């Protein structure tokens, strides 16, 4: 098994598959769909050995593939994963399967291009998570924009052009600064090896500049307040599948970037700017929580809720330094970091499910406006049960995955400062308020109008998608130990590394 280049397979299988799907055209749409689904399922199966063959006892990179790519600049085709990237890769291949299924009958316009875009997207995102060469990472990073740009621009809603350009410019603007930082470090270290960057000596000024350059790229992706306004627009205009990938995976790339680049490369800058990161994270939780409350568009509401939930991720990552200061050891900091990671995976499931739920309604009613709904549970009881379940997960109910990460981060942030925990814990109230208020207006009550009365409950395809995600949310909520175990060694190692000054 170990001889197989599994990572390359997981990257290139969907990309090549996507090109084939693209070439097959739209004449025989069903064959196209089945091909796409086969490719996605195969990719998921191929990615499973990454989990089963993963050695949880080490923080070393595993499944490493390394060969020269552009020798003049010392750029390598260098792949490898640790406990931080592996769960995210499996999450990507898992969610991609459901994105293909979710677009099955819904997408009638150019289905082959739609499916191809998602498959290529999948491979590129896995590439981002597994690249250990900074230039390779950057190529994947930028390549990710193209399919998403097309997905929103072609299959999006009425205001898709504004949204897709806003999305593109926002993220592109951020990543240019990252490129400068990467090239700077290449000149200092002589290679694009990310792991070599980790040990590269940098002065505080250099670190701060590099940190800010990375921040530009990652903060936009996460997204952190105040560079978050592209997200609600992008979500509202994106087709369901686009929203799912955007929320479930692409946002995680920002969080992943902090763990792979910002924290280990510029630990001193991270430490001296942690107050800023914590403040922005808490603004995301509280401010965005309030904003979500007044949304009238379901997708916007969930988009804002995503931003608030991602606030927990960045909070968990950046309270590390204060905990280390308070307790003279990094004890407790691991909890926050792992909490942030768990939150990313969990949010991958829950946000995907929430957007799919809205998609189910949108496919039938062609409206995302909460005011157009009411009493849906009377006509769609099975869907109602699932949506209430996901809403509860979104509100962080124990027993669902939504609780795990929030709980860990709140426990950890209490060690940093009482008030961090206090503000973070407001999500218990705010998260429940905006989610349940939406559920009340959409699902409960008497049948609001004839359109709702004519609704039909979800079909088997939709049940399969939502049901699988429900199982995932429940399993992760009832037994998160395996997930935490795979990341533990890598997080411990990362933490050991970043509390040591580079100066």
């Amino acid at each position, binding site marked *: 098994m170990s001889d197989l280049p599994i990572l390359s397979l997981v990257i290139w299988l969907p990309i090549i598959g996507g090109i084939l799907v693209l070439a097959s055209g739209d004449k025989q749409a069903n064959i196209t769909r089945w091909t796409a689904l086969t490719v996605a399922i195969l990719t998921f199966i191929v990615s499973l050995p990454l989990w089963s063959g993963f050695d949880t006892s080490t923080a070393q990179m595993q499944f490493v593939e390394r060969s020269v790519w552009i020798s003049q600049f010392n750029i390598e085709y260098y792949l490898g994963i640790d406990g931080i990237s592996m769960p995210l890769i499996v999450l990507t291949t898992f969610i991609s399967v459901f994105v293909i299924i979710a677009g099955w009958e819904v997408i009638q316009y150019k289905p082959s291009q739609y499916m191809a875009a998602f498959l290529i997207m999948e491979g590129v995102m896995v590439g981002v998570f597994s690249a250990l060469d900074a230039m390779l990472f950057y190529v994947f990073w930028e390549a990710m924009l193209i399919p998403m740009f097309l997905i929103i621009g072609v299959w999006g809603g009425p205001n898709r052009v504004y949204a897709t350009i806003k999305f593109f410019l926002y993220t592109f603007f951020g990543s240019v600064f990252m490129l400068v930082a990467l090239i700077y470090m290449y000149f200092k270290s002589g290679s694009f090896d990310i792991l070599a960057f980790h040990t590269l000596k940098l002065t505080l000024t250099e670190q701060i500049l590099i940190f800010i350059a990375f921040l530009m790229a990652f903060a936009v992706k996460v997204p952190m307040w105040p560079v978050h306004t592209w997200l609600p627009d992008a979500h509202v205009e994106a087709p369901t599948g686009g929203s799912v990938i955007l929320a479930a995976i692409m946002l995680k790339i920002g969080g992943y970037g902090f763990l792979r680049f910002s924290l280990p490369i510029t630990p001193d800058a991270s430490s001296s700017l942690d107050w800023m990161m914590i403040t922005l994270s808490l603004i995301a939780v509280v401010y965005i929580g309030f904003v979500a*409350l007044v949304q009238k568009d379901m997708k916007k509401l969930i988009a804002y809720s995503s931003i608030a939930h991602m606030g927990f991720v960045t909070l968990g990552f950046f309270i590390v330094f204060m905990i280390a200061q308070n307790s003279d050891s990094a*004890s407790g900091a*691991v909890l926050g970091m792992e909490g942030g990671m768990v939150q990313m995976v969990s949010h991958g499931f829950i946000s995907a499910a929430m957007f799919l739920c809205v998609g189910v309604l949108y496919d039938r009613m062609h409206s995302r406006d909460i005011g157009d709904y009411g009493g849906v549970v009377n006509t769609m009881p099975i869907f109602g049960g699932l949506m209430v379940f996901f809403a*509860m997960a979104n509100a962080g109910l124990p*027993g669902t995955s939504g609780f795990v990460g929030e709980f860990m981060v709140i426990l950890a942030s209490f060690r940093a400062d009482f008030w961090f925990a206090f503000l973070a*814990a407001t999500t218990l*109230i705010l998260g429940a308020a905006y989610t349940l208020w939406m559920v009340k207006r959409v699902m409960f*009550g008497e*049948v609001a109008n004839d359109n709702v009365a004519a609704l039909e409950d979800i079909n088997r395809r939709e049940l399969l998608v939502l049901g699988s995600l429900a199982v995932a949310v429940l399993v992760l909520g009832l037994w998160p130990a395996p997930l935490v175990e795979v990341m533990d060694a890598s997080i411990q190692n990362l933490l050991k590394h970043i509390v040591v000054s580079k100066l």
Partner: protein
Amino acid sequence: MENIYLLIVLSPLVGAIIAGFWGGQIGRVGAHWVTSAGVGIAAVLSLFVLYGFISGDNQVFNGSVYTWMVSDGLKMEVGFLVDHLTAVMISVVSFVSFCIHIYTIGYMADDEHNWPQESLAGKNSYQRFFSYISLFTFSMLMLVMSNNFLQLFFGWEAVGLVSYLLIGFWSVRPTAILANMKAFLVNRVGDFGFILGIAAVVMYTNSLDYAEVFKAVPGLADTQIQIFGDTNWSLMSVIGILLFVGAMGKSAQVPLHVWLPDSMEGPTPISALIHAATMVTAGVFMVARMSPIYELSETALSFILVIGATTAMFTGLIGIVQNDIKRVVAYSTLSQLGYMMVALGASAYAAGIFHLMTHAFFKALLFLAAGSVIIGMHHKQDIRDMGGIRKYMPKTYWTALLGSLALIGFPGFSGFFSKDAIIEAVHHSTIAGSDYAYAMVLAGVFVTALYSFRMFFLVFHGEGPRDEHAREHLHESPKVVTIPLVLLAIPSVCIGYFTVDAMLFGDWFAGALHVLPQHDTLGELGKSVHGANSMLGHVFLSPPFYLAMAGLFVAWFIYMKQPSLAEKIKGLFAPIYTLLDKKYFFDEIYQAVFAGGSRGIGSFFWNKGDRKLIDEIIINGSANNVGRFAGLVRNIQTGYLFHYAFAMILGLLFLLTWFVIF
């Protein structure tokens, strides 16, 4: 033993899953059998466990079931702690739940009438209801059997979820779906404090396990922490109060009590099970379980005492002016929860748990009796429409009478022992606020008797029913309804007498509840009274008896003897009546301040922050600026050769000048 404990929690869960997912296939009979059997097994096994503790065969069990997660050396587990306290709790929960499962068969029999005809949510609603109440039983059992804070929080939120689902069970009713959201959100306010309390515990003891935490807290008794600036706070007080905020939400203490009366929108069986007998007492149970922490902070105890006493008195007063039969009982529940909290605040944890137990029986009984009346009255709930029901529903009448006597603490009934013990314990307490609490709980006795018998007389006695339509069809409820009434009436009458010796004056709770010598109010009480008979012997020497009798008499006089008096009094004290009728305006204030306020803040942030400042000014603004700048620059690139030539000449001139000068 571990297998028995697993079976106790899992059998209701299995029932809930089968009835929930395959309700359509197994049908109504299948659903109520499978869930009742599951809860029945749990009840029998719980009583078996309890018996084991009584006979002394059982050892305290403390073990883990599985490891939920290990992070950073912090072990998070799911596990059981079964001691004397747990044994009492699981027996009460599963027994009451079992009675209510049976009762529900009758109460929900015609549930399809509660749904619009075409509603698919109304299909199989009967099975779904059984699934929910079994799921509730599972959650509640997990809560009380937990041996750690994590699982406690799990159960805590899970019962909240089921409560949410059940209050809003009739989801087509606007009032029901408002009430369930309100209940969930108010509870979340409590949980907000609760989770911070847990975080504090974890920070200072590095454990979630009760045993380890309790072992560590004495060493932290003098720890001071700083929250606001440099002011020092006792860590134990902070933890105690934060955890208690959670209890205030779940056990509906002022000012987080507002959700409980509204929860009456749910079907009556769950009002009895969740919002009277079990879930709402979770806060009481939690504080008692945390007695090793609370004993170390008199501040927290005083806080509990004052909140509890306030709740006991002032929610009871509201009960006097309510006209909805279920709401009277709901306010009574609030008031009795206040009594339990007062007991905890006075360090009489055993008395709090004892009252929790007796209350579970007689209050479930009263709710079920109210439900029986509601069935008879064809879902009319206004007590002004009732009257004279005694003649039509004798079994309901007699069991309701027993329940009411237990509630007002009539000598010999179970409520007498538990309430008297609380009042006497507060009397012996010396911590701050105990005088206030004593006055409140004493006055509360009169109020309790007044509202209880006001309702009792108006519903069952006199001429009636006043509603003509109801009179024609009124008859006693079926056996599935009356048997649970009888089953609950038995402990309501006599459980106090038989258990008070062991629970309050014996060493039943010795290993489970922790009381410092200087707080031992029950011990003080034990010096003057020595058990059930001794308590009965003191009846005529203590004020509560006379207050209860006075309340009963006043209720009889106003509502039976001189019915015109009620209106006169109402007119005479109009402002007070309005204040009570409007429930001290809590709902109006909360609606304006919290609901309105958050929406206001949300709109402000969204419109001014996101849309105006960020999007319009910064993002689109800079995009526009780029556009404008490009527009300016475009003027230079005109495409006319002579413009470019002119620019070149200018440049040349400039360069030449440069060279000449430098």
